[in-house]
């Protein structure tokens, strides 16, 4: 009886996994086949193999430039977030600034409550008044403001977990606080900094709403926005271009996640993604 139940259970679980696997794979098949198809259609089909579609990217005036824009915006935001969050997290971890716990609590609360959706109206208005519309700087500052609270929170956890004895000895030898931070603390918390950098790059690279609101000029727009305009604006969508561009634009994020999961494991441990 129990053996029968066991076998039935195995069959049921295998069937469930097959169905779910198909559900998740189905939309992605197109991304794997169309870029290499000599005559891509919207239906998934076995491609008549070619690499010629990738030339379509070179012919489009905005495609390659938009990848450059994505690099500037994601890189700029990641740099600001990592540097400012590291400084703040270090100070908050080592010195009892008055009101520190309340500050951390409010930061955590804010980062969940003030989402792009809820704040798009005032952020658009603020950017307009500060002349930040259609600038890379505008995008970088706005998204950094949104990422910083969580980054500080995570990095403070990393800093809290590192011993302070090296810092004490360095201080005895007369190192300044910035020297100590740079030569001693940074090497120790490097995994934390890398996590924050990857996370910031990935979220800006894939982010759409803020970039869409803040940038009107297609020459400044990142890939997320250009790709959207490729399939929504004007007549028949150009499928060779959309498919190859989607693939090229997705690759860096996928590679980064593979790198992170290979290096640190991509799993929750009691709640944290490490």
């Amino acid at each position, binding site marked *: 009886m129990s053996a029968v139940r066991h076998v039935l259970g195995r069959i049921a679980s295998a069937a469930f996994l097959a169905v779910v696997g198909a559900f998740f794979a189905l939309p992605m098949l197109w991304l794997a086949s169309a870029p290499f198809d000599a005559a891509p259609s919207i239906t998934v089909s076995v491609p008549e193999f070619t690499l010629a579609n990738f030339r379509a990217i070179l012919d489009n005036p905005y495609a390659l430039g938009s990848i450059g824009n994505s690099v500037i915006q994601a890189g700029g935001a990641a740099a*600001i977030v990592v540097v400012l969050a590291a400084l703040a997290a270090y100070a908050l971890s080592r010195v009892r600034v008055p009101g520190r716990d309340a500050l951390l609590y409010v930061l955590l609360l804010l980062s969940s409550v003030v989402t792009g959706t809820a704040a798009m109206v005032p952020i658009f208005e603020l950017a307009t008044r500060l002349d930040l519309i259609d600038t890379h700087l505008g995008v970088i500052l706005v998204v950094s403001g949104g990422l910083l609270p969580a980054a500080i929170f995570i990095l403070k956890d990393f800093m809290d977990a590192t011993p302070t004895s090296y810092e004490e000895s360095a201080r005895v030898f007369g190192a300044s606080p910035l020297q100590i931070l740079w030569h001693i603390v940074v090497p120790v918390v490097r995994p934390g900094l890398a996590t924050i950098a990857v996370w910031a790059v990935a*979220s800006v690279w*894939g982010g759409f709403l803020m970039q869409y609101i803040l940038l009107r000029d297609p020459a400044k727009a990142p890939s997320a926005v250009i790709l959207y305009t490729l399939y929504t604006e004007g007549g028949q969508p150009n499928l060779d271009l959309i498919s190859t561009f989607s693939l090229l634009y997705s690759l860096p994020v996928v590679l980064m996640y593979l790198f992170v999961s290979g290096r640190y494991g991509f799993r929750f441990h009691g709640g944290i993604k490490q």
Partner: protein
Amino acid sequence: MNTDAAGLGRRRAVGFVLPALVLIGVFLVFPALWTIYLGLTDYRLTGLAAADPQVVGADNYTAAIGDDRFRTSLWLSVQYVLGSAVIGQAVLGFALAWTLRDRRGPVRRIIEGLVLLSWILPSSVVAFLWIALLDRDGGTLNALLGTPGAAWLLDHPMLSIIVFNTWRGTAFSMMLYAAALETVPPSHLETARLAGASALQQLRDVVLPRIKGHVLTNMLLISLWTFNDFTPFLITAGGPEGRSEILPFYVYTTALRGGQLGFGAAVSFLILLINLVFALAYLRLLRTRDRTRDRDRGRDHGDGGGAVSGAGPAIRGTAG
């Protein structure tokens, strides 16, 4: 860990924290507060009210509540959160974590990889993949089901984006429940099984009581994210005829496209308040859990349940 090992001193410590706080203050706190003020004015993008906005008090709020389109949109948002997060992502995520829990090897890696991939691909890419999948004339789904000409996005826009978001976001629930299930001792399940408990009874009596906290955490976080999700805009843009116009799209179309900034700010403030309820409930939950854990086994570093919680909303918030 409050020893000032590097000899930073309070003044320099404040100097280290300040740049981050200024950026957060200007681009996160100030917009949130400004929403409250803008929401009380008749501010517009162009025209007379753009040059000289007047304070109109609660008019925007009464206008919103009296507006059919707003009420429809709020109701669609409720459907979207319940359908795609509370039911779709949480149930599918749990089912996956449960089915995969004692599997190793390629099957598990492939399934997990596919689920994760749908989570990490950029939103404009996945949006087009779904447009292609559901296309009326050449869509893969119609080819597969043998239903040529079925216009999924036109006839069932809400169902389409609910299924889409289930596909898009299940990874988080799957990973969180997988971690939660690891806290259930196998021996307890074994005992229950030997005592003749069915799978459902095991789930109800052994597993659920242990992972209650995780379930609640997961529900709050994915509801908050889904409520603020802008991604399906790239698929339906709220159409056809507003039949998939959830609250974020409503704000975007009325305020930024229609130019009614004051009115849009009022609706944004309502969204902020709803977010606040979710976030406060979540933080309260975390603190109770932290306190229990501190009592149970002392302060535990590196676990940082709070960290992902803080990171999560921001990830979705800005990526939205």
